[in-house]
């Protein structure tokens, strides 16, 4: 299978300043998250993949096409949702999305149909005949998403898609992204500085720092592993709960009175833990799967050699 994008010793410079330095790797995940602090080079990497920046050294390929030699080919396969506001204020949403679809090569009739469909899909069906200047920030984000998917791209590049959204709008955006990720034939690159966005939508995370890839992790694997880590808070019982749990095949570490961490054995069902608690007359007050793995990974990746952030 052709990787979604490949980087081979990719470096990008602006004048004397090196923005991306010696990036390597082949990425085939359905949804890849680009993480990193401001100025890490996330947007520059996206712009390079789109062919806006020429590599100073090395090469980047999208679906096997070189960004240097075949940028048009790449752009015909890509839908791009930029970070900043990008729209034409005096146009209505439907004509704006239609024009963008036509520029991607759709015939006028098909473009009009797809514009309506995309706007309905993102939830702007009722507002599609309004001028974009009258849209709220959240609606403008959705229009940017609609224009990015109107031509049916194979790769969707989303640059900070939840920027400026209130919690319900963010939730909606994340739901849309997840929906598209799970559909056939669409890969996603999501660039964000919000760990939650990446965690909730992506299968892989690529962490950039100072223009270098400092970590690449498979979030699906991490999630699977996390399903085995538990944090428990219990009340009551005679203290034999941890020992009994170990007999069931869990590794337990007591971290305080009534608090423990567990590593569940393969195939272990949570139901057994509740059954055990009932037998031992223990009340389970809190039970959490470990959720902060990406944050841990990110913070570890951001640490300098001296251990400081």
């Amino acid at each position, binding site marked *: 299978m052709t990787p979604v994008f490949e980087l081979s010793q990719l470096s990008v410079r602006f004048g004397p300043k090196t923005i991306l330095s010696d990036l390597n790797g082949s990425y085939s995940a359905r949804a890849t998250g680009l993480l990193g602090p401001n100025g890490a080079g996330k*947007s520059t990497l996206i712009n390079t993949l789109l062919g*806006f920046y020429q590599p100073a050294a090395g090469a980047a390929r999208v679906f096997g096409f070189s960004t240097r030699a075949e940028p048009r080919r790449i752009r*015909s396969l890509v839908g791009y949702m930029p970070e*900043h506001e990008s729209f034409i204020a005096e146009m209505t949403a439907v004509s704006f999305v239609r024009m*963008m679809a*036509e520029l991607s*090569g759709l015939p006028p009739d098909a473009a009009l149909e797809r514009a309506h469909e995309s706007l309905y899909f993102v939830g702007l069906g009722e507002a599609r005949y309004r001028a974009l200047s009258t849209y709220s920030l959240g609606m403008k984000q959705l229009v940017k998403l609609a224009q990015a998917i109107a031509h049916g791209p194979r790769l969707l590049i989303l640059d900070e898609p939840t920027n400026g959204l209130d919690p319900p709008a963010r939730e909606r955006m994340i739901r849309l992204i997840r929906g598209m990720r799970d*559909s056939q034939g669409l890969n996603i690159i999501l660039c964000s500085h919000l760990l939650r966005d990446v965690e909730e939508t992506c299968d892989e995370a690529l962490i950039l720092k100072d223009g270098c890839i400092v970590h690449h992790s498979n979030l699906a694997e991490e999630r699977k592993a996390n399903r085995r880590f538990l944090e428990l808070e219990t009340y009551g019982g005679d203290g034999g709960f941890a020992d009994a749990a170990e007999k069931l095949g869990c590794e337990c570490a007591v971290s305080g009175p009534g608090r423990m961490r567990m590593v569940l054995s393969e195939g272990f069902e949570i139901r057994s833990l509740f059954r055990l608690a009932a037998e031992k007359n223990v009340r389970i007050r809190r039970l959490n799967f470990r959720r902060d793995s990406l944050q841990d990974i990110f913070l570890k990746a951001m640490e300098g050699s001296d251990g400081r952030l």
Partner: protein
Amino acid sequence: MAVYRKSYRGYSGKTTPEWRRFLVVARYAGRRLVRSRLLVAFVAACFLYSIGCAVYIYACHNKLVLSVLGVLGANQATLVGSTFFYVFLQVETGLALILTALAGPGLLSPDLTDQGIVLYLSRPFSRAEYLLGKWLVLLALLSGITWLPGLGLFAIQSDLAGSAWLLANLWMLAGLFFGSFYAILMLSLPALAFSAWFRRKLVAGGALLLLFILGSGFGQAVNASLRTHAGDFLALDHLMRIVQSALFRRPSAHAVSAGAAWAELALLSMLCLALIIRKIRAREVAQ
């Protein structure tokens, strides 16, 4: 991805040829322009002059009208000849300046104000195609009031005067076409540059008018104070007149040659394109 389906689906239908995509930009830009009633009214008014000229040509070939006016037997060549078409082009060039000031500023600025340009260029679409599409709108508008009606008048005159007149005056077609083309380039490229640099349409339109009006005045001031003809290079309207005079084989009162005027057009075009390209960028990250 039908409206009732709430899930994403790709597109697998046919696509348009890449070379034709710049026409999409031209079509949408043209559609935006015709929503301005002022612009549509002005374009319609521009045709009135052409219609008046057509009536004049007809009258020049109508014995009854000529006898009423008392010029029956006058030399037809003096009534409708190179002077007639030269004056026609001069008037239409003046109207074209106003039309460009009305239409030009709204072409690029809406795409640049809210960074819409990033979305154009993130598609299989180049800056050159984008510019070509936008310029095509001005080319069509200005052609519609300059060389195209000129061609129509020439056809009417040829039809009424006969093939001998047509053969003797065929060279004037080149005058009409190249004289108009020079004016169109001279007007449209600065208009696009101003549209790229000034976000407000009124400012961009005003700047274009000032370029021609102040440029002409400043050029004359330079000529008078320094006793040279270098000031003519600053007066863009003079340059257009110089080129059009030469094309219609008329004596020119200006010291600048038509060749130098064409060279200045080339320089001005390069300057305008450089100014436009500085603004038409896909990047949104500050370097």
